[in-house]
């Protein structure tokens, strides 16, 4: 690929290559604790990293800006239908040099604009060549510029495994995008990619991480391989997979590939490709939101994908969040006595999160909890009150019936509604929000609320 345009300035390049990278979701800087000095005073580099991750800014879409998220180049030999940088698109192209990336990272970092670097790339010539460019950049940043901040780098499917291993010792997190939940979907939309090429390096990184952890257990100063773990990303709504399939894939990735995070990205039809669905009403943000909620349930609340969804009930409920939805279908498990139930049971109550559940368990060691106390501990009683008792009593007399609780939970005016204009807290209406034209009869309404759609 020969660029016929004149030499671009760094500013132009940054604009093009940021714009090209923005559809990548993972902008987290968490998972690694690394000090920049030996004693809080002396150090010979720049940067450190804290486990919780730090957000440095938030862009106009409300997403966090933590890392300098750029592509190394947006020149690409692939022609994936969903991607803005595909080769058949006529968009301005640019490439950084390793030094430009290093300089930008360091200067932004010194001013505390960013927490580190997120480097991805289009495929220039071939995967191995591209990966080598990324390696050069990272190597320079770590050894010449002595940068100790966070680095997230994309592994490029099909690149030489040796390069992936070498780059793993420089980066804090690596990720390979799964792009689509099923192999079939991938074949249709991204003709140059295949599932095997994606899962291969993913397995390699997983093995590398395990090996590195074992070595660290014996040798304290052994080099660390991808200390922040690996992540991946799936596009939601480009193909017709159901939520059940997506969640099962995520669960498999967490269990079998030891992934740290799976990111979901609501599909935006940037290319207006005819093979892909149009996103006129905006990207499917509510679906993305529900998937993230379900993802959290898998990772932190001890739920299994099978419990949340099944073949008869393959999509997440629009009106209720996944935990409420599970709870109203399993009323036999409720009500839960807050002063006695174990942590695991408490975590399954809607309105009680990980934080409030641990607080409850700790606080009840020294006192019997009342509803008043629960409020103080951060329990959302508005949702929890149908499912809990305190000292044998419910907060208000309520019926333990699915219909009743669903009506109560969905009735409140304050339910979140995601539209293309973002979140609005107006009352949801079936007619406006869900494009129902005729007034639904009572059975349909009940079904809708029970999540049978």
């Amino acid at each position, binding site marked *: 690929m020969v660029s016929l345009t004149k030499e671009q300035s760094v500013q132009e390049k940054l604009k093009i290559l940021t714009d090209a990278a923005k559809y990548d979701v993972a902008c987290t800087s968490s998972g690694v604790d690394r000090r920049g*000095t030996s004693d809080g005073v002396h150090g*010979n580099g720049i940067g450190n990293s804290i486990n919780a991750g730090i957000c440095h800014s938030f862009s106009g879409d409300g*997403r966090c800006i933590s890392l*300098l998220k750029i592509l190394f180049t947006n020149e690409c030999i692939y022609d994936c239908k969903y991607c803005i940088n595909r080769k058949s698109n006529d968009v301005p192209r640019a490439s950084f040099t390793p030094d430009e990336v290093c300089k930008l990272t360091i200067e932004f970092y010194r001013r505390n604009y960013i927490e580190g670097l997120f480097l991805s790339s289009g495929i220039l010539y071939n995967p191995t060549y591209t990966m080598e460019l990324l390696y050069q950049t990272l190597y320079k940043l770590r050894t010449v510029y002595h940068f100790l901040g966070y680095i997230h780098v994309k592994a490029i499917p099909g690149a030489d495994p040796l390069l992936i291993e070498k780059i793993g010792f420089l980066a804090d997190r690596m990720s390979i995008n799964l792009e689509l939940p099923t192999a079939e979907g991938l074949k249709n939309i991204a003709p140059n990619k295949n599932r095997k090429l994606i899962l291969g390096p993913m397995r390699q990184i997983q093995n590398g991480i395990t090996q590195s952890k074992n070595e660290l257990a014996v040798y304290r100063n052994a080099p660390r391989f991808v200390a922040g773990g690996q992540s991946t990303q799936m596009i939601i709504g480009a193909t017709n997979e159901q939520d059940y399939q997506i969640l099962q894939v995520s669960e498999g990735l967490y269990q079998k590939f030891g992934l740290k995070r799976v990111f979901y990205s609501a599909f935006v039809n940037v290319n207006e490709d005819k093979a892909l669905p149009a996103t006129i009403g905006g990207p499917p943000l509510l679906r993305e939101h529900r998937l993230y909620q379900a993802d959290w349930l898998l990772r932190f609340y001890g739920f299994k994908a099978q419990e949340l969804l099944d073949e008869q009930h393959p999509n997440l409920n629009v009106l209720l969040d996944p935990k409420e939805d599970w709870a109203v279908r399993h009323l036999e498990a409720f009500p839960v006595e807050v002063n006695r139930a174990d942590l695991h049971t408490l975590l399954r109550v809607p309105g009680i999160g990980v934080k409030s559940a641990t607080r409850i368990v700790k606080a009840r060691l020294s006192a019997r909890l009342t509803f008043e106390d629960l409020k103080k501990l951060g329990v959302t009683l508005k949702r929890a009150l149908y499912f809990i008792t305190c000292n044998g009593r419910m907060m208000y007399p309520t019926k333990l019936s699915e219909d009743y609780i669903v009506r109560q939970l969905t009735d409140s005016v304050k339910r979140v509604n995601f539209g293309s204009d973002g979140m609005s807290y107006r009352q949801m209406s079936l007619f406006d929000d869900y494009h129902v034209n005729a007034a639904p009869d009572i059975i349909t309404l009940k079904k809708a609320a029970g999540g049978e759609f």
Partner: protein
Amino acid sequence: MDTILVCPHSLEGVFTAIYIAYRDKMVHDNTHIQTQLEQELETQRVLFSEYREIQPDEELFGKVRRTLIERIGWEVYEQICEAMAMEKPGMADSVYHTVVKALSKGPNTGCYVLQNLTDPYIHKVAMASQNVWREIHHLMGFVRFEELAGEEPILYSQIGPKNNVVTFLAPHFADRFPMENFMLHDCKRGIFVVHPKNQPWYVRLEQGVNSIILPPVTKEEETYRELFREFCQSIMIQSRRNDKLQRQMLPIRFREFMVEFS
């Protein structure tokens, strides 16, 4: 009759008052600590109570500090310090009674004191510490340095936090930029944290100084500001635009000091 110990709003002041309350064998339930700053915020005085002024004393502070770290552990001690960074009425008193509760139980239980959230004093301290920690964590990200010209460039940052957190931020940045000269300036309280290259950081108080004269910014500074603004603009996905979410994640009060919003 209640006794109210009045001290300056600082860890030194409150710990000295705690020492005195223990030394003079006061009945803890009838004793309260109020700081001068809290008195300004809440001008009402309580009738039929004795007010007693306490002068902070470094030695007594050290004694209390040592005991606390030993008995309640570093983590809880840090949380108590964070709570004191919040300038709200009743905070010193809550800290005092939390300390009393922590020390009244047997050995090795002090570190669990903040778990008993049903106690109003402890609840107040725990929530304040959480609140302050959140602001510290926010500012670790939202602080923006600008490069000032000089023999060696100096990174300078101005912040106006709700709570008095600038000293909590200093260790983080000192660890992050050991080879930089940097300065954090809390312009609401007139507190400077100064970190010379490869040396420990220190605090300077310049209260009452309205304007300080700073050297001009370097030539490249404007370039990088512009680059970052450009970056923040390009990274946004127009079809997901959501100002409300942005406001929720990054409250307006921080934006005054951030280059991408100026």
